[in-house]
């Protein structure tokens, strides 16, 4: 049993510490994102939003958390119990697992792996299981309909997200997230690849089941969609998982298109600020866009959603992959192996 020596224990301890440093602020941000969302939507609708608990209602997420903790978990009798309990856990832990490879600043990452972007893509394609298992295990027609919608939607939009990622990868020549950010040192990819940024943003909305593509939890036709039967902490896990996925998608867009932790100009005052400041700022702007869209647009019809995914985004992003790689080959700009 020589694997329990001081070195490997130190190594394991360091990893756990890194995880704690990332996860705790993330969970706090997730909790306060629910507050920010309510405030933003209230502002759009000329209301005040939560303003009772604490100053400006800032403690509202805490109150909500305590409420959810202290409620009773109800397991429907006709449900498949193990899968029913497992589903929200899978949804929640997957949305946190993806953060292992996100570089929040230069070198500030738990694991800097060579296939970082593929890992993110894989994790986001796995997150459909939490939803589909919840829908099946609930043994309720609304939950099942929601799960079916969600699965079809996520699988469809992954295709265009994949092609958008290919566009970026052709420009970078590496799957490593650190390399992707460093490649944007001179120009952020949002400028040459602007149409793909828009496609990515809209696909991210569909991938995270956010309005205007929130058909899986369409309250006017499906009660609450796949989490209709869930209550208390199990419900809270779905809820937190959805918001964590939203932050993750914004972080991904930041890394792929907005230059990650890099400052916008090479200006000495900007260079003094730590990279995490820029990363958080860019991610917050994208998150605000998520909330803004929710408050602005009406919900899509399901056939329209599928039409956009397969008939508009897929050809467009495929075309753009060809254009990008053609351009790089003609002008001999293809990234060479280091």
């Amino acid at each position, binding site marked *: *049993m*020589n*694997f329990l020596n001081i070195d*490997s224990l130190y190594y394991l301890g360091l990893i756990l510490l890194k995880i704690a440093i990332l996860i705790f602020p993330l969970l706090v941000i997730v909790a306060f994102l629910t507050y920010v969302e309510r405030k933003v939507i209230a502002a759009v609708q000329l209301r005040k939003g939560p303003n009772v608990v604490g100053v400006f209602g800032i403690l509202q997420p805490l109150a909500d958390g305590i409420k959810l903790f202290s409620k009773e978990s109800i397991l429907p009798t006709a449900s*498949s119990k193990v*899968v029913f309990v497992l589903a929200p856990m899978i949804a929640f832990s997957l949305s946190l697992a993806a953060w292992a490879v996100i570089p929040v600043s230069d070198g500030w990452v738990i694991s800097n*792996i*060579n*296939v970082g972007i*593929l*890992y993110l*893509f*894989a*994790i986001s*394609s*796995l997150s*459909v*299981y939490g939803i*589909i*298992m919840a829908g*099946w295990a609930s043994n309720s027609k609304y939950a*099942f309909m929601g799960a*079916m919608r969600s*699965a079809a939607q996520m*699988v469809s939009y*992954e295709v265009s997200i994949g092609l958008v990622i290919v566009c970026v990868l052709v420009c970078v020549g590496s*799957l490593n997230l650190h390399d992707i950010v460093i490649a944007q040192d001179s120009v952020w990819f949002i400028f040459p690849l602007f149409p793909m940024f828009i496609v990515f943003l809209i696909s991210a909305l569909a991938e995270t089941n956010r309005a205007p593509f929130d058909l899986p939890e369409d309250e006017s036709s499906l009660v609450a969609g796949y989490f209709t039967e869930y209550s208390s902490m199990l419900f809270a896990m779905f809820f937190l998982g959805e918001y964590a996925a939203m932050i993750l998608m914004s972080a991904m867009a930041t890394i792929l298109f907005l230059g990650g932790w890099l400052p916008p100009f090479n200006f000495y005052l900007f260079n003094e600020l730590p990279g995490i400041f820029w990363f958080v700022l860019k991610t917050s702007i994208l998150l605000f866009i998520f909330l803004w869209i929710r408050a602005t647009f009406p919900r899509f019809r399901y*056939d329209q959603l599928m*039409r956009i995914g397969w008939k508009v985004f897929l050809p467009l992003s495929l075309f753009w992959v060809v254009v990008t790689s053609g351009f790089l080959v003609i002008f001999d700009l293809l990234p060479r*192996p280091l």
Partner: protein
Amino acid sequence: MTVLSLFFYLFASVSLTSSVLVVVSRNPVHSVLFLILTFFNCAALFVLMGAEFLAMLLLVVYIGAIAVLFLFVVMMLNIDFATLRKGMSKNAPIGVLVGLVLFIEIVVSILGMNFEELPNSFSEAQITYNEIENTRALGMVLYTQYAYLFQCAGLILLVAMIGAIVLTHRKRDTVRRQSVIKQVLRSRDQSIDIKKVEIGKGTSK
């Protein structure tokens, strides 16, 4: 015993157990879920071997797409377990026979394989493990030496896809489809006809 081998035994035992459970589960949905667990652990084993690209491919393609379709189909089907088990005693010997033949084939081919000789046929494709990251290594042979085979594989998949569409697609006259182009191109003149109506007479239509 290092930490790595500890992880190896963890993933290997979970994948073996869950692959057995795929077969013995009574509920087909649980079977598919165990199948997914098996895939997932195999991906983890790939990571331990240093084949990170293959691992991610397994996650994205098999778990993220194919297994979702499996799960879809199995959930939609209304399977009657009683009728399924009826044929069990009748079909079991055939199943055991087929399984046995396949098992013997695998054993024979593994025993008959000469591992020393094998790399020669692929000598040009050989890239030593630590020299280069394996995504790049795969890309270098896949799009140069094996470009035609790669394209052929793509064509086969395309044919399969077109075949599936041709087999399932049929035109129905009763379905009313939304044509977005038609809707957008419609002008005011085409859709509105203003008429002066005299009181008590009505229009001709």
